[in-house]
């Protein structure tokens, strides 16, 4: 079944608290993600840890993107085209687990987030659609 691309993409905007990694975000975040990817190499991680700002200046990223990374503001990074699998290279280098890093994007502390997961996770109830409120 062939889908219309405009309708397909429009539906993504109706999901609460979610930035789907569309082509538009992938284009916007290209260098942000490629920078993050560079931290897969141990020697780059060393250079990054020694001077984060100097390391970022080697990449053609926007000022906003650089500030968002320095602040570890991952929701802002998502808005600026970051993808979590790429951003994971940054928080892994910081020594954060996936769960802890992910919790920083919610309105919870890490212990609160962990408790929520142990209790069965965030319910889909009311979290599926902005317009439909279901």
């Amino acid at each position: 079944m062939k889908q219309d691309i405009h309708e397909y993409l429009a539906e993504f905007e109706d999901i609460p608290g979610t930035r789907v990694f569309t082509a538009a975000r992938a284009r916007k975040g290209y260098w942000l993600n490629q920078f993050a990817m560079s931290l897969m190499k141990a020697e780059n991680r060393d250079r990054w840890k020694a001077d984060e700002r100097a390391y970022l200046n080697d990449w053609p990223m926007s000022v906003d993107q650089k500030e968002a990374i320095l602040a570890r503001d991952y929701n802002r990074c998502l808005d600026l085209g970051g993808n979590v699998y790429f951003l994971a290279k940054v928080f892994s280098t910081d020594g954060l687990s996936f769960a802890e890093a992910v919790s920083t994007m919610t309105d919870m502390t890490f212990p609160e987030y962990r408790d929520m997961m142990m209790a069965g996770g965030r319910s889909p109830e009311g979290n599926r659609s902005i317009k439909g409120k279901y």
Partner: protein
Amino acid sequence: MARITAGVASSHVPLLGVAVDQGKTQDDYFGPIFKGYEWTKEWEKVENPDVVILVYNDHASAFDMKIIPTFAIGCGEHYKSADEGWGPRNVPDVEGHPDLAWHLAQCLVLDEFDMTVINEMDVDHGLTVPLSMMFGTPDAWPCKVVPLAVNVVTYPPPSGNRCWALGEAIARAVESFPEDLNVQIWGTGGMSHQLQGPRAGLLNREWDNKFLDMLIGDSDAARHIPHIEYLRETGSEGIEMVMWLIMRGALGKSTKCLHRHYHIPCSNTAIGHLVLEPA
């Protein structure tokens, strides 16, 4: 003649690899997760497959934003464990099966699935965690592996229907390989999880179990689930479940369930695991 004898589905959460590598599989947190794989470990020893076609997704390890193949097949001799930011997992190298892999690549292209051929790459937790879950910690993996990487990161990923049809084409291609091989196909990733944004942490036990039910028996309803349903119901990373449909499609019209396991949570994720055989 080569034949697909079974299908295995499993989540591939990186934390499971950490638990194996740090010997924590029996503790209070991980014990109930790993208990659900004990049956499969014993079963795999008996089944002793020659090759596993392992459907997984790369998480910005072998593929960055430079190249985004929708369907890629590993045709190399061997693959090393990727350094995902904290050093590579200390697991055996993965041995490929270039003869079967190239046969599949050729057949699939003739069958109108235009595969990307990968000769050299490192493989990340998406591929090595399922091997650890099914085979434990051997000195060498007990079978060869044909990696089949699916783009589920940059939208749009392939549709469920396309994944199912690719599975059907893989089954036809395996059957035309002249060597006598016991081949399994594994679909990995999922189940419900969202790793980003204020909605992170979403899990959906009810939907996940409905999905598990749909893969058993003769229904093909799962192939028609649209992407938006995965996104709304199972979180932004739940879309990985389309990879399970490649496995399911390769098993033919009907399946029998040999083993089933579901557990919440592992890190941010719901763990699901199925062992199926063609029926």
